[in-house]
């Protein structure tokens, strides 16, 4: 199996493009051609691409339409945010207490941190879930463990009852909504609707935001490359073959002796962990996280990105996520000129969602392969002519237009 095998060409092209993009942005930032906030926007976009990559493995390859994976993304953000906020507050508290002349006792420092962080919700004690917040390694472990265990338990309950299709989608929506409502409460221990803030300030780092934004941009690009290569290896091997078979006809896979539930659980949990890692890179760049990030709509966006990019191909998910989220921040940023229509004015801030919705409907109806399908057209790859028959009996099965001959 050589790297130049046609099967691996898309991965090589993808990595070359991403490398060029990273170098280009870095140079542009060095020469002051792009603002720090724009570098952050690009870094955040790469994290969203990473989440979309996970979504594509889950939905495009395994046929599980989860509409709750942004919950894992946000949980990853919360977990890293706890350490960032704790360590940063600790620095401030220690500095403030040192002004008093006497060195502060650990109890005083702890009390100071708790009051600083939780004063806003009228509490002055650190909740038990903050027990590990003082330690970066422990909190990093929680970035993986908390969303991972949640996905494992949720997935186990759902898959063993053979919940599939739209019912699973609804369950995952309910999960993310329930989590959001829980986190909105002040006594959930994560500052209620205030969320965690000031996450862009790295403790112990004196470099300016212009440097930090580039570090995170590089880290996000590196994470995207590693995940892309890993997932590419998974989907082009026998494992990929099994999950595509599950997507198209899971009953048949069972009779081959594969535990369909085990595979679904594996993929569900793996993608949840990837989303969590993406979130842990995203929120330090965003600077703030609150329960609104777990709103059901966020996870629906994730599915929309993958659909517009073209599900069942990894680069499609990345293209879809990058394009739609960048366009979204452009349109909603108020920088797009409004269009006077005589009887009224078309403000893009208000109409962007309508445009996105229409695009989604059009892609679903007329170009089910999404943007990724354009590459097929250039490569001369056609869909099979099956007179409308899908490639398997299951709900998530590949549609005729999505397949390659």
């Amino acid at each position, binding site marked *: 199996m050589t790297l130049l095998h046609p099967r691996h060409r898309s991965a090589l092209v993808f990595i070359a493009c991403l490398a060029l993009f990273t170098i280009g942005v870095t140079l542009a930032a060095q020469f002051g051609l792009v603002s720090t906030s724009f570098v952050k926007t690009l870094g955040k976009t790469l994290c969203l691409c990473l989440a979309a990559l996970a979504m594509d493995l889950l939905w495009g390859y395994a046929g599980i339409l989860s509409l709750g994976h942004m919950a894992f993304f946000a949980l990853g953000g919360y977990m890293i945010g706890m350490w960032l906020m704790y360590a940063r507050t600790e620095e401030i508290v220690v500095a403030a207490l040192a002004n008093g002349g006497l060195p502060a006792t650990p109890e005083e420092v702890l009390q100071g941190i708790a009051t600083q962080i939780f004063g806003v919700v009228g509490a002055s004690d650190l909740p038990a879930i903050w027990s590990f917040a003082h330690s970066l390694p422990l909190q990093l472990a929680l970035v993986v463990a908390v969303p991972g265990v949640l996905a494992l338990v949720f997935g186990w309950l759902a898959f063993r009852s053979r919940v599939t299709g739209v019912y699973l989608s609804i369950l995952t929506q309910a999960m993310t909504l329930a989590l959001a409502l829980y986190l909105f409460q002040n006594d959930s221990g994560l500052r209620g609707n205030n969320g965690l803030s000031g996450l862009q300030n790295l403790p112990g780092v004196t470099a300016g935001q212009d440097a930090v934004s580039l570090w995170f941009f590089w880290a996000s690009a590196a994470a995207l490359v590693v995940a892309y290569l890993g997932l590419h290896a*998974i989907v082009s*091997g*026998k*494992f990929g*073959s*099994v999950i*595509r*078979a599950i997507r*198209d*006809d899971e*009953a*048949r*896979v*069972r*009779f*081959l*002796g*594969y*535990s*369909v539930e*085990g*595979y679904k659980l*594996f993929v569900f949990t793996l993608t949840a962990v990837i989303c969590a890692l993406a979130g842990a890179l995203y929120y330090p760049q965003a600077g703030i996280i609150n329960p609104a990030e777990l709103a059901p709509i966020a996870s629906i966006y994730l599915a929309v990105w993958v659909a517009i990019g073209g599900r069942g191909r990894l680069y499609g998910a990345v293209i879809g996520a990058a394009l739609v989220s960048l366009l979204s921040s452009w349109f909603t940023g108020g920088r797009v000129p409004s269009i006077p229509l005589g009887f009224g004015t078309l403000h893009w801030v208000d109409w962007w969602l309508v445009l996105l919705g229409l695009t989604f409907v059009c892609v679903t109806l007329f170009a089910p392969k999404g943007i990724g399908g354009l590459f097929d057209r250039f490569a001369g790859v056609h869909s*099979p002519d*099956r007179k409308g028959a899908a*490639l*398997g009996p299951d709900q998530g099965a*590949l549609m005729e237009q999505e*397949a*390659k*001959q």
Partner: protein
Amino acid sequence: MSALLEVSGVTVSFDGFRAINNLTFAIGAAELRAIIGPNGAGKSTFMDIVTGKTRPDSGSVTFGEKSVSLLKLSEAQIARAGIGRKFQRPTVFEDQTVRENLTLALKAARSPWAVLVWRKSAADEARIVTLAEQVGLGDRLEQKAGILSHGQKQWLEIAMLLAQEPKLLLVDEPAAGMTLAEREKTTELLVDIAKTRAVVVVEHDMDFVRRLNCKVTVLHEGAVLAEGSLDHVTKNQTVIDVYLGRG
């Protein structure tokens, strides 16, 4: 001779309708058996029970030398224990190549972790090529299964079953939709397979059953009506009344 599969006293009702009624059935380790019967006789339900898709209300199903009960196992576990099933409609993975289809079926560890680190050995590749050639798909390994003809899909599915190396093969109407030449080839293949393992064929087509030249079990209303050679059962007056007599 001890039986490979033993079904005894099995009863299944769907909403009060007894699809299987106190059914008893046994097959040896290297035996070919045809099951015939009118529509609704319980042929498909019988297969569903053996493969774990349907749980019986009462009775026992045991399999293998150690007589393991199949009633507590999941479909996937039963398949791993060595029971392969071929459905009536050809069910291959249409978006995957013939090679991928065969690789999926090839006997190997089935857990996600094992599959993740699985690498195809030279022996695996040789086995895939041999199987494909055996069913006349040797030059179509890189083609998607979806573009194969109906008969070729049936063949691919049979090759996949062989790749699984089951001890017992359940085959549901293999001749459906096949041309005469294909039927003859199928007959030869099934007879050949049954030399080393147990094969149960459910079939409507009496000519096809005659060609198989094996013991026949006639099902009616969820129970065994008659058993023996085809000539023996076709002379049975009850069989003629309930099945053959309908033309």
